[in-house]
């Protein structure tokens, strides 16, 4: 926990620095008609830096052997996280619907060990339903890939 706390606070402290840097660039003063664009971000950033510094101080003094996440906890978390990231990466090239089909199918087979029939049914029907709801029904275009182009959508 202690290490994670230190790392998080440090990252947030850096964020504060970035905010302050940007704010100074656009003006942090109090103009004739109220604060300039950078006024609030500047003080928000400064406060963030101060608060994070204090949290760093607290955490550094604390003795805490409890790990942020145990090995047996990290496994399932990653099993959710990395396929989700893969979904986003695939969406870039294959479009959302095909990626969703691959992702759902893979996940059902890998984690749930569902029968191939169930896998196939859900992996086809779910993206198809999403397609109809969004593209046809609500007319919200989603990222599309080669398959949709081939089908003339």
């Amino acid at each position, binding site marked *: 926990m202690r290490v994670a706390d230190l790392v998080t606070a440090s990252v947030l402290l850096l964020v504060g620095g970035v905010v302050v840097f940007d704010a100074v660039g656009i003006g942090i003063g109090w103009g004739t008609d109220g604060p300039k664009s950078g006024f609030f971000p500047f003080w928000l950033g400064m406060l963030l830096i101060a608060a994070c510094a204090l949290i760093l101080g607290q955490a550094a003094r604390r003795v805490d052997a409890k790990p942020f996440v145990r090995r047996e906890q990290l496994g399932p978390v990653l099993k959710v996280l990395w396929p989700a990231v893969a979904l986003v990466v695939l969406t870039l090239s294959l479009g959302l619907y095909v990626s969703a089909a691959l992702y759902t199918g893979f996940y059902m087979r890998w984690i749930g060990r569902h029968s191939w029939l169930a896998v196939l049914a859900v992996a086809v029907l779910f993206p198809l339903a999403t397609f109809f709801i969004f593209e046809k029904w609500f*007319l919200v*275009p989603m990222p599309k890939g080669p398959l949709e182009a081939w089908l*003339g959508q």
Partner: protein
Amino acid sequence: MALKTALALVLMLVAAAPAGAAWEPTKPIEFVVPAGTGGGADQMARLISGIAEKHKLSPRPLIVVNKSGGAGAEGFLDVKGKKGDAHTLIITLSNLFTTPLHTGIPFNWRDLTPIARMALDQFILWVNAETPYKAAKEYIAAVKAKPTSFKMGGTGSAQEDQILTIQLEQALGLKFIYVPFKGGGEVCVNLVGTHVDSTVNNPIECASHWKAGRVRPLAVFDTARIAVAEWKDIPTVKESLGVDVHYLMLRGIFGPPSMPKDAVDWYVGFLKKVYDTPDFQKYLGEGALKPSFAAGAEYVKWVEENEQLHKDLMATGGLLKK
């Protein structure tokens, strides 16, 4: 059950009869609005989409998509990135010029393919009806007597409303306090609530409050009076103040860079058909928009002139990116 019926209903409405032409859309057309939902540009985009639907003017639906980030920069840059795409359109307002000039984003209207100008929007100087100012002259005299104490409300910063305010200030030697709001409707309500003293709203944004006797139009920022019956008694700025301050806002349609020629031609024809429908004409009349359809060289020339105009206006107003 209702779900199914609704789906059938929607699908039925979406499907439109095709017409045999050289080029026509083969998939849904994405219609980008570089502004939020509910504003003037958004309204017109949805109106066009609706008219296309109602009169079956397009074989594929127009899907309106709002990309309002960064005063429209998000929408412009998105369309700029879709080189050669024949299924994307963008409707513009004055932020076509003002946003790149003020924020310095890498965009110019020349990055897009001009298709057609649908209308020009008017601007009017409004005051609250409870104030004693019956004519623009009286109001301006009051502002002159007490500089930096009268509040002018407008939409956004470094956009058309502020440009117009600065023009007025410079032509007459005045000084307003300019208060920026998020949208035109909000501006007019703040005038009704006397939180600001005057506004330069588009006619449609204040029309209903005017009819209800809450606000009073003093002058039109154009070279001639508005040709619609109920608006034609409002004098122009030149008539009432003797200085020629005028400004019109573009409601035009563009396509992505190097859009195929056939596609441009189809869209010009399509938009002309939309323009000629009674629905569109009624909308123009009610909003006191200036009917001014133009395409091709005429449109390009107008845009070029206006780009220069905005550059000059923003330079004199100190609104260019430093």
